């Protein structure tokens, strides 16, 4: 036995080494384990030799294969089979226990059935369900097992209390191992389980082989071979063969099982049926192999013993295992599955498993035996053998541990990926040579428990929890930085940023081809408020010229121009007005007078002229269109201002609607005259003996204004008055005549006037005014124009109006009555009435007296010839000379009109007249007498009875050629207006009526138009008259 044992041991080790790479160490080690057990049992058997029948039966199922292997004798195998058969039969007689075992068997079968099912199923759920179902079915089994185990334990305890120290040791060892397995080493249990399964499978496999006839034949052949091989230790080979066979067989069986699994629920019954059939088959086989059985009966028994022990142990383990959760079951099954799919020896497991089933059939007795005899077994072990047993048990435990180390890993792997069983073998391979580490194993055990718990929890919770895919969280989005920023960041200054780049792009030049327009600003102001009336920007080149030009403008001249222009315009407007107002007497009005072609009236219908007699008319010798009319004091009080004043109106016959200017003075004006120059001066002598001067150039604002009938009249007061001053030389009696004395005026008559007209208007040529009063005093006055105007009034010139410019300076005084007349005439106290200066020589003057004589004198008192101009009839008569008129054509002729109606024509060189007409007016006094201005031989005479006579000496030197009578009204004054310089023949006769009207009659052309050589003819006529 000892030799056998050793040899086998060696063999197994050797075989393990050989198979190291082919398969995992597990089966080998298990085999070894089994061998050990067997050895032990053999020893026990040999020593005690007490194997009861029951004992044999119990162990038979398990041990037979090992025995067969160990002793390498197929015959013995056959014997064993036979014996088992016998045992079975024996057992069948047993009652309750067997039944129990059957139950267990069926449950195991079911378990086995479930394995392929699990394999087939993919879903865990279903598997779980399956397991639960399985579990439920197993519960009673478990209970039984527990009972079983409890008994077993009890029996162990009893043994412990009662018996050997050695056995105690073994027990403790076993317990220790059990503890290991219980605590952590699922794998260990599993491995044992597998081991059992393996054993059972193997045994069953044998039966199975026998089941199929074809296979049986093969098997028989193999057995024969085995027999041949039995002498040598070629156990492995045979074993291999077995394995192969078993695998094949298993496969076939597997399919069978699968088909059976399809029925699912009807499994138990079917399984039972099958079990029965198998048993029947087995009986047959047993019969066949009965021959072998007999030979190895003892050994068989020994093996039985051994197996019984192992079965007992394993059974305990199984119980423990089954106490574990069905999860572990599941694991186991999965392991099986993996085993099946992967390797040859996995098939062994399956085979073992099947055998196991068979074993249980056999174990009916064994289990029952266990109840009774399990306690005896340990007792039978002798003390001397304890060390050996110890050794063996240690080895077993070590092996278990080793298996345990590998298995947990597997399970863990499986937990993680239960469907990937394929990986498992390689993993298991890797654990071949690992050292045993209990600590690690402990840890693994615990962790696996934990994992299993967690997994359970997981599976429970998973349906409750919804896992979902979250949206993707952006953790960082760092955009790429452009090159420039990077550059700035690396090389530029920190915290600065380049904001602007200057390039020369905007440096452009622009040009315009067109020339710029020259512009100049100018301004002007009218009326100019200063010397500067226009201007503009000074930057222009023209400006200096303008600046100098502007002051050069002659405002004086402009004013004069405007004045005259205004007059012209006023005249034109007046004519228009006349044409449109038919109610007013027009110039074109047809006259009833035979001497005139047409006539018109000056509008004397002015408020200030009402009820004033016209005392005097006077025409200007320079400005032929102007006329003075002297209006006397009104008969009743009128306007306050003009109440005690006489008025002189200055007319322009071209504007008959209103007087040009109105002059007033405090005393009654007797005589008046214009200045001999162009200067508009009016001189007047009053009854008070004062001489007055009006300067018509004066601004009207200097004079009082009166609003009359919607017109603003300026009543000019005299510019200069001799009244109250110069009392030593001034006239003390009324001034009868005022005559301008002009030295150059009539020197050359024809050209003198024209030259005068060109005289400078503003510069007053020096001229004198002569005034003569009733007492025969002739005063000569020099008209002086002041250069400087004193608005405040002059201190020295007391008669000057403030702001006036013209004054009279007394020149000389002549006492005419003493110097002119001889003594005889002087006795008659002649009274001077009229004075006239010779136009050609202003130094000579003639004075008309009231005795019919005309004195002749000079200003410088030279003796002149003739001293007196006498009428044709001698003797002194009191005939007052009313009118004297010098011929306007430069001839030294003058006409004298006398109050007796006689008219005399004198020449300066003779004392007596050239002609004298005494009764031409029928004794009526001559009021006015005047030469025609356009014809040298024609003169006009007005008598007191308002008759106008026209004399044309060339036509008739005895009688007037025409006589015009104004029966309705008295003509108080008459003067002539005409322009001798022109040949248009216009000659107007101005008649002042007593009513105050002034008529202007245009004389018919036959008396007005000059005739050729009229002066010579007149000269001839005058010569004839001499």
């Amino acid at each position, binding site marked *: 036995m000892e030799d056998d044992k050793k040899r086998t041991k060696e063999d197994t080790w050797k075989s393990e080494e050989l198979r190291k790479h082919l398969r995992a160490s597990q089966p080998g080690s298990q085999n070894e384990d089994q061998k050990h057990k067997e050895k032990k049992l053999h020893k026990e058997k040999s020593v005690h030799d007490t194997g009861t029948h029951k004992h044999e039966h119990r162990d038979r199922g398990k041990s037979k294969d090992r025995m067969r292997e160990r002793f390498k004798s197929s015959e013995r195998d056959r014997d064993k089979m036979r014996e088992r058969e016998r045992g079975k039969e024996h057992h069948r007689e047993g009652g309750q226990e067997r039944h129990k075992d059957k139950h267990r068997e069926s449950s195991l079968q079911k378990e086995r059935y479930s394995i392929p099912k699990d394999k087939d199923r993919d879903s865990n759920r279903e598997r779980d369900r399956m397991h639960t179902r399985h579990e439920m079915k197993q519960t009673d089994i478990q209970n039984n097992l527990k009972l079983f185990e409890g008994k077993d334990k009890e029996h162990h305890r009893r043994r412990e209390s009662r018996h050997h120290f050695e056995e105690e040791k073994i027990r403790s060892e076993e317990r220790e191992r059990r503890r290991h397995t219980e605590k952590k080493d699922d794998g260990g249990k599993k491995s044992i389980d597998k081991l059992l399964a393996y054993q059972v499978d193997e045994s069953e496999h044998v039966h199975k082989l026998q089941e199929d006839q074809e296979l049986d034949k093969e098997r028989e052949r193999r057995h024969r071979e085995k027999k041949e091989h039995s002498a040598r230790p070629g156990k492995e080979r045979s074993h291999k063969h077995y394995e192969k066979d078993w695998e094949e067989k298993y496969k076939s069986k597997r399919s069978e099982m699968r088909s059976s699994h399809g029925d699912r629920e009807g499994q138990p019954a079917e399984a039972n049926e099958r079990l029965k059939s198998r048993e029947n088959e087995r009986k047959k086989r047993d019969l066949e192999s009965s021959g072998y059985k007999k030979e190895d009966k003892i050994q068989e028994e020994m093996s039985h013993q051994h197996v019984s022990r192992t079965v007992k142990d394993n059974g305990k383990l199984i119980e423990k295992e089954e106490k574990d959760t069905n999860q572990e079951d599941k694991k186991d099954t999965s392991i099986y599955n993996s085993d099946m799919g992967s390797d040859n020896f996995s098939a062994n497991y399956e085979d073992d498993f099947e055998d196991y089933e068979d074993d249980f059939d056999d174990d009916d007795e064994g289990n029952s035996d266990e109840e009774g005899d399990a306690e005896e077994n340990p007792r039978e072990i002798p003390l001397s053998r304890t060390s050996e047993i110890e050794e063996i048990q240690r080895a077993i435990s070590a092996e278990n541990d080793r298996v345990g180390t590998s298995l947990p890993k597997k399970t863990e792997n499986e937990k993680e990926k239960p469907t990937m069983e394929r990986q498992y073998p390689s993993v298991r391979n890797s654990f071949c040579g690992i050292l045993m580490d209990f600590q690690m194993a402990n840890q693994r055990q615990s962790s696996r428990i934990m994992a299993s718990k*967690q997994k359970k929890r997981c599976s429970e919770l998973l349906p409750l929890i919804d896992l979902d895919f*979250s949206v993707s*969280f*952006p953790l960082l*989005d760092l955009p*790429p930085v452009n*090159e420039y920023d*990077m550059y700035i960041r690396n090389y530029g200054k920190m915290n600065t940023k380049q904001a602007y780049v200057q390039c020369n792009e905007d440096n452009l030049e622009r040009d315009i081809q067109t020339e710029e327009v020259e512009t100049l600003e100018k301004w002007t102001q009218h009326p100019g408020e200063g010397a500067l009336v226009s201007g503009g920007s000074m930057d222009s080149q023209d400006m200096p010229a303008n600046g100098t030009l502007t002051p050069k403008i002659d405002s004086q001249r402009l004013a004069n121009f405007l004045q005259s222009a205004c007059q012209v315009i006023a005249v034109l407007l007046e004519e228009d007005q006349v044409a449109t107002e038919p109610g007013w007497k027009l110039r074109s009005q047809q006259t009833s007078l035979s001497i005139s072609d047409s006539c018109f009236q000056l509008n004397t219908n002015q408020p200030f002229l009402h009820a004033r007699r016209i005392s005097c008319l006077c025409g200007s010798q320079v400005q032929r269109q102007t006329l003075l009319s002297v209006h006397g004091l009104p008969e009743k009080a009128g306007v306050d201002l003009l109440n005690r004043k006489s008025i002189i109106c200055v007319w322009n016959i071209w504007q008959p609607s209103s007087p040009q200017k109105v002059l007033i003075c405090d005393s009654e004006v007797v005589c008046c005259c214009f200045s001999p120059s162009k200067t508009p001066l009016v001189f007047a002598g009053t009854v008070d003996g004062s001489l007055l001067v009006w300067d018509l150039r004066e601004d009207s604002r200097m004079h009082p204004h009166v609003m009359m009938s919607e017109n603003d009249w300026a009543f000019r007061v005299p510019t200069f008055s001799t009244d109250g001053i110069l009392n030593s030389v001034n006239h003390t009696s009324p001034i009868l005549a005022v005559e301008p004395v002009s030295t150059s005026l009539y020197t050359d008559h024809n050209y003198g006037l024209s030259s005068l007209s060109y005289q400078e208007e503003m510069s007053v040529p020096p001229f004198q005014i002569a005034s003569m009063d009733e007492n025969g005093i002739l005063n000569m006055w020099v008209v002086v124009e002041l250069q400087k105007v004193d608005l405040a009034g002059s201190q020295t010139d007391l008669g000057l109006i403030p702001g006036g410019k013209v004054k009279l300076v007394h020149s000389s005084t002549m006492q005419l009555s003493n110097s002119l007349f001889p003594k005889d005439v002087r006795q008659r106290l002649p009274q001077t009435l009229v004075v006239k200066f010779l136009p050609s020589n202003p130094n000579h003057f003639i004075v008309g007296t009231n005795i019919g004589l005309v004195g002749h004198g000079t200003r410088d008192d030279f003796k002149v010839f003739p001293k007196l101009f006498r009428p044709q009839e001698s003797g002194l008569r009191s005939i007052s000379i009313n009118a004297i008129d010098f011929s306007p054509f430069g001839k030294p002729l003058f006409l004298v009109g006398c109050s007796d109606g006689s008219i005399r024509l004198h020449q300066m060189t003779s004392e007596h007249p050239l002609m004298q007409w005494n009764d031409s007016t029928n004794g009526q006094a001559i009021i006015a007498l005047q030469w025609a201005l356009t014809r040298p031989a024609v003169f006009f005479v007005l008598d007191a009875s308002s008759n106008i006579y026209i004399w044309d000496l060339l036509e008739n030197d005895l009688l007037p050629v025409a006589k015009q009578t104004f029966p309705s009204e008295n003509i108080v004054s008459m003067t002539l207006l005409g322009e001798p310089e022109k040949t248009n023949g216009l000659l107007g006769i101005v008649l002042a009526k007593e009513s105050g009207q002034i008529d202007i009659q245009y004389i018919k052309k036959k008396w007005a138009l000059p005739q050729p050589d009229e002066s010579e003819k007149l000269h001839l006529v005058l010569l004839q008259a001499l």
Partner: protein
Amino acid sequence: MGELGSDDAAGNTYSLRPSLQRRFKSSTVKECIHAILKEKLANVQYIPEDMPQLTTSLSETIKDRLKEEGFDRYKMVVQVVIGEQRGEGVNMGARCFWDADTDSYAHDVFMNDSLFCVVAAFGCYYY
């Protein structure tokens, strides 16, 4: 770079949801991360040799800090990425398969002139 958090043994309770106080709060976690990053990376220049060590230490620090926050039954995963600032564009994202009711994450970015650091902390609840 990655670091697994504590593997607290879950008690045998059947609470499927964390209490409100124990819930993983993104804002507080973010603050924690921010504070740590500010403290650790204030004046750090990017030196390639030092970065692995720095990232691991950072992740450890943050993980430990988060454990102190008392998110019970949470598994913390802290990911730290440090990269150099060279102007290149970087885009990072995460996607999770989890129970959005209980699990959450927080992340924070720290940048200075030479480096950027992205820390993402994920909390997964143990049922």
